[in-house]
């Protein structure tokens, strides 16, 4: 047994002497990142993280503490027990040693990739984006991380997971007088893959297509959301299926499992088993095995996202969606959100639009009252589609609506899907009638 494991076991037994149930969670990670600013390599950063969190149930109440500093057992256990005096009474049962699926989320060789190779990746991305617009400011950040999380508890679970992540984040900023284009994209994987090339191509396309400008008036029109633009539709759904909002009664879907909520063409999974994705894992952060589940199957609400606590409060079992940072108690969270692909090629979907919009980003995502499904956002990057052709970038428009009304009848989804923000695999989504308000006087 390693010194670290021995230390965790010692902490566990010290906490177990004071608590009916005890859990120790430890993380260690090391990452290296480089940053290019305005097309030039500017800085390099090495980041090391370590820390330990303790959770205990004392007289049926939750106690918690965490530290990234000294991990002397005595004061840590004392703090955890002290907080349990006021802690929340919960009847949750920590899981024992359970069999988990084999999920590929760690590539040991990533840590060995020489920094020069990361610099090459950055230069390649910059060269591609410069081709699209030599005058734009281009920033690229590249990071590779190796992480190890260990969890042991008094029920006998001992989960030791390693994960790796390779992120390439790229952004462009183009100012022509007061005309501004800001766009970004990213690629994430557990190995050094060439996904960043696709991200750079997508970004280059956005820049080139924004070269021309177009106009649109207020009114109802078809709007085609890109995978990145679809976040404005998905965010309210994600919040509504989150066990915290379900258990608190603030989710509009709280008592509607089994009901037809959305269009039958809408199937959305939480899938922690996708190979090679940084958000994939065999176990969640509470030691519960992860599995793939439909949140909406053909529009019918099928599952919520639950951790141990929200499951206990709802009288059901955790869905393996307990997620935590070092310094807070676990809360439910999706791993990878995967939407089923549609049947129509994107090109055909665009050519079918007589007059409408292609929306790639909005401003103020999540502001307002997203739990209710309502949104009202100015577009960030959007294009006009006219007679089946993208004619140029349009500014000064706002979209408004309620996703529960809009997603009841969608106009279809594309065959092509893309990863967004490293953990959402989404098609383009066409909504036949969206309220668009022209915001310029």
């Amino acid at each position, binding site marked *: 047994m390693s010194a670290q494991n021995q230390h965790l076991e010692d902490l566990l037994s010290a906490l177990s002497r004071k608590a009916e149930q005890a859990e120790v969670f430890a993380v260690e990670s090391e990452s290296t990142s480089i940053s290019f600013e305005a097309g030039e390599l500017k800085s390099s950063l090495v980041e090391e993280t370590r820390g330990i969190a303790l959770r205990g149930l004392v007289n049926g109440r939750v106690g918690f503490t965490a530290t990234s500093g000294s991990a002397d057992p005595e004061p840590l256990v004392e703090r955890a027990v002290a907080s349990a005096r006021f802690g929340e009474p919960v009847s949750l049962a920590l899981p024992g040693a359970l069999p988990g699926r084999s999920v590929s989320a760690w590539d040991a060789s990533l840590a060995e990739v020489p920094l020069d190779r990361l610099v090459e990746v950055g230069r390649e991305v910059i060269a591609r984006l410069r081709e699209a617009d030599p005058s734009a400011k281009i920033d690229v950040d590249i990071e590779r991380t190796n992480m190890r999380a260990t969890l042991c508890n008094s029920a006998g679970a001992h989960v030791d997971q390693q994960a790796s992540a390779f992120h390439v984040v790229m952004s462009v900023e183009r100012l022509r007088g007061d005309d501004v284009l800001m766009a970004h994209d990213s690629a994430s994987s557990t190995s050094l893959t060439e996904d960043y090339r696709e991200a750079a191509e997508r970004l280059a396309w956005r820049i080139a297509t924004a070269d021309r400008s177009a106009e649109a008036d207020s009114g109802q029109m078809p709007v085609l959301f890109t995978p990145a633009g679809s976040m404005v539709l998905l965010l309210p759904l994600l919040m509504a299926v989150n066990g915290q909002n379900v258990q608190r*009664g603030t989710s509009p879907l709280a008592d509607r499992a089994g009901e037809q909520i959305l269009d039958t063409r809408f199937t959305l999974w939480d899938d922690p088993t996708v190979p090679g994705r940084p958000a994939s894992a065999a176990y969640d952060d509470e030691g519960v095995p992860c599995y793939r589940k439909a949140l909406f199957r053909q529009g019918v609400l099928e599952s919520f996202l639950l951790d141990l606590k929200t499951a206990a409060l709802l009288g059901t079992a955790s869905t393996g969606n307990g997620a935590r940072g070092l310094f807070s108690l676990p809360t439910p969270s999706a791993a990878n959100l995967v939407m089923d692909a549609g049947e129509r090629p994107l090109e055909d979907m665009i050519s079918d639009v007589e007059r409408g919009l292609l929306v790639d980003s909005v401003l103020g995502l999540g502001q307002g009252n997203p739990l209710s499904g309502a949104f009202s956002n100015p577009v960030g990057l959007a294009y006009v589609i006219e007679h089946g052709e993208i004619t140029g970038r349009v500014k000064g428009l706002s979209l408004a609506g309620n996703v529960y009304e809009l997603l009841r009848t969608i106009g279809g989804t594309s065959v092509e899907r893309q990863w967004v923000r490293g953990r959402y695999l989404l098609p383009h989504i066409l909504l036949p009638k969206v309220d668009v308000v022209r*915001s310029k006087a």
Partner: protein
Amino acid sequence: MPMDHIERALASNRADYCEIRLERRITTRIIYHGRRLETVSTVVNEGGIVRALSSDGGWGMSTFNSLDDLTTRVEQAHASARLVPRREIHLASHPVIVDVAPASPALDGEGITLEQQHDLANRYNGILLGYPQIVDTQAAYIDQHITLTYANSEGTRIIEERPMAMVSLSATARDGTNVQRAGDGTSSADGYPAMLQLDDLARRVATRATDLLSAQTVVGGVYPVICDPRLAGVFVHEAFGHLSEADFVYANPQARDMMVLGRRFGRENLNIIDDGSLPGQRGTLRYDDEGTPPQRTPLVERGILVGRLHSRETAAAMGEAPTGNARATDFRFPPIVRMTNTYIEPQDASFEEMIADIDLGVYACDAIGGQTMLETFSFSAGHGYMIRQGQLAEMVRDVVLAGNLFSTLANIDAIGSDLAFSRSGSCGKGQGGGLPVGIGAPHIRIQDVAMGGRQA
């Protein structure tokens, strides 16, 4: 962390410039959600960052939790700096500061028990829950004590304590599928005692959420808008403030053109200032995270752009002076250019004067959030009221202001005398969120603001 440990590490430095910033953050959180006390915890986060600048490279950095081997971190940062191809990076000079006085005792949490802190959160939560249509609440008491040690190879040595207590309240009201939320909060460097008189704040939050149930969504359109100090402050921070951060312009010739000093941004009545030396505000500093003392920096004077915010690096790059605006969210981040207390200077318009000649308009209050894409912005007000024939009329919700920064600033045609600062402002930039900032403004009136919303 004893200074001699740091001295030894700095003595081993071979880079042209090196700085060490160590932090210890002790945070106690007591959070009620509805009737459940969801979080009671005290956590300790400690660690540091070493930043090195090499004349034959660029910036190299190392961040870490373990403080055991600082000398190795210094070496690691230097090695990282040399990986970067040679860049012309310079730091504007500033006075060497030695300020290592021990912190004043008995600040913040000391002597205050977990039980007292819990009882306070419980009291405010009880007020929120006392309203019949409130179905969910959050009442949080957070006490944070940061001990900061800073040293650089030029001789600056600073030890600083940054205590803070914070109360944050929110309430969710529900009527069938109609779910509305309101929230507010406050914070103080004076700790627990400054958090005791917030019953009225709690009542306002619960009343607001309840009232929003019967408010209609605002009808989309273009209106004259009066913004309350909170919303006006968030607007000036988000829409204008970030553009005056020199790291936006210094490496981008196009941005330099856009933000050229002398350009007109507003009318004669508009003055915008950033001032980290204002006493007792949320963004008030003794020193920034490069050891530069804060100062009053006029950004807009009589409608004209006159200044910008700098770190030592951006100041050197633009041939200007550092302004004490190099700030880091925590030890995981190098300092970058950030605002401190940013505000619109008060003028003499009264609320009555502003509203009198508005036939149809909106009084937009409170800010849920804002996002900008340089010239395009979106701000969500917490709630609002229609203005009809010069009078406040019915409450409205889903008040989202959108528009173009330049035309909107130029359309501010009245500025009130009632400057107020928010005590709950947090700023996110890059990956670093949650930096305390002061956000201030009086009531302001803006002509021709576009508002999303339902169709009439």
